[in-house]
């Protein structure tokens, strides 16, 4: 599970994330919504331990990301915004590198690599260097490295960005499949995604939490029953 308590980030006087407290339980797929610049990525980066909060704490499966970073990170699969990668590396050696860092070895390493390569349909590009891949493939490699160690917690920053409708559907199906026993947070600004995969949605605007509800509960807040009307009303 993920837990944040009064999580804040102050960039030289600009409050990017303002006193955010929430927790996500196993089995939940939390949609993390908000306009561009609302603080979604900053929040995810703090939970993943890439940047240090100016206030508050975050923990993954009970391990505080500041106090026990290695234990917390071991529980986490993380897809950073924009799916950064090593351009000159081949897909195969990149995934092997991540599997090594994740402590996978022997038969488990091989079966996990085979699994994610098959699951994300990367067989055809396994020998290609990452810089030659299309945006959609880069994102899928990013997803593959996030789940290669079968982590109990997943944080995916815009996992379907840049994918075509078929690939989007594929990724949503994948998330749906693994969601049962995992804690998953995905950020998105595509509202249809919330209906498609999320059991709960959290909307932030200007770093503050403005709504926390099920997709159905959110929809009920607008007379039209449309998510984007609700989104505009609370995030504006």
């Amino acid at each position, binding site marked *: 599970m993920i837990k944040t308590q009064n999580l804040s980030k102050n*960039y030289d006087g600009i409050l990017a994330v303002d006193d955010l407290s929430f927790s996500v339980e196993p089995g939940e797929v939390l949609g993390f919504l908000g306009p561009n610049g609302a603080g979604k990525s900053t929040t995810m*980066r703090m939970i*993943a*331990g*890439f*940047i*240090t909060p*100016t206030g508050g704490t975050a923990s993954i499966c009970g391990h505080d990301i500041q106090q026990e*970073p*290695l234990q917390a*990170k*071991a529980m*986490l699969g*993380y897809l*950073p915004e*924009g799916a*950064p*990668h*090593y*351009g*000159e*590396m081949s897909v195969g*050696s990149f995934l092997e*590198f*991540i599997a*090594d*860092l*994740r*402590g996978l070895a022997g038969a488990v390493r091989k079966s996990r690599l085979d699994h994610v390569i098959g699951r994300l349909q990367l067989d055809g590009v396994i020998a290609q*260097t990452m810089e030659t891949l299309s945006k959609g493939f880069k994102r899928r490699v990013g997803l593959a*490295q996030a789940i290669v160690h079968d982590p109990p917690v997943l944080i995916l920053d815009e996992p379907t960005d840049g994918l075509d409708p078929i690939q989007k559907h594929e990724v949503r199906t994948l998330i749906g499949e693994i969601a049962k026993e995992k804690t998953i947070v995905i950020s998105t600004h595509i509202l249809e995604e919330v209906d498609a995969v999320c059991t709960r949605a959290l909307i932030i605007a200007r770093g503050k939490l403005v709504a926390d509800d099920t997709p159905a509960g959110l929809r009920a807040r607008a007379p039209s029953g449309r998510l984007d009307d609700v989104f505009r009303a609370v995030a504006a």
Partner: protein
Amino acid sequence: MKTVRFIMRRELSGYFSTPIAYVVLVIFLLLANWFAFWTGALYERGQADLAPLFTFVPWLYLFLIPAVSMRLWSEERRSGSIELLLTQPVTLWQAVLGKFLAAWIFIGIALALTFPAWITVNMLGNPDNGAIFAAYLGCFFVAAGFLAVGSFTSSITKNQLIAFLLAAAVCVVLLMAGFPAVINLFQRWAPAWLVEGVASLSFLTHFENITKGVLDLRDVLYYALITLFFLLASTVVLESRKSK
């Protein structure tokens, strides 16, 4: 330790997957041999040793090492892959050390590829191969000091060119501190302890014994401390970036 090895291996294979590494190697070897055989008059001086080669090594390092170290962190930060790396269960120190070791091995390869000069002196005479080996080892230690400086300057900027220039600048200062001209400049006004201090901080002062094939523990310790200091500084810089 395993983690360090994985990071080192990835980094090292990264060097050889771009043409830059080969270009740098070729330029280094051309210059090293040019200086040794022409400027250093390896043949004409009629002595069977590699002193002409080793004398120029620190000056060649001025371009070789920054070229190798500039990408260590700048490239990770520019491409954003640093976020991927540092959200794996690795500590900053493991990442800094792994990358440094990869660059160090690369320099080791560059040094080893000067072996034709060694073969040449062995064909022409009977050099003291023990001293030559010690000098090679010394050059390898010196490289660690330079590389750690490069790791540090690479950690403070996303721009590889700036990382290169800063590393070269810091290394020039560290080299020149032992130059007679610089020492004289200080001697005019500074107390003796300061002159000594500046001179003893110099890469060059500690390099001279090494070229002669004398591995003094104090010189090795000096380079080890310089290396450790700048690697720790890299870690501190990267850690502070997280709070930016």
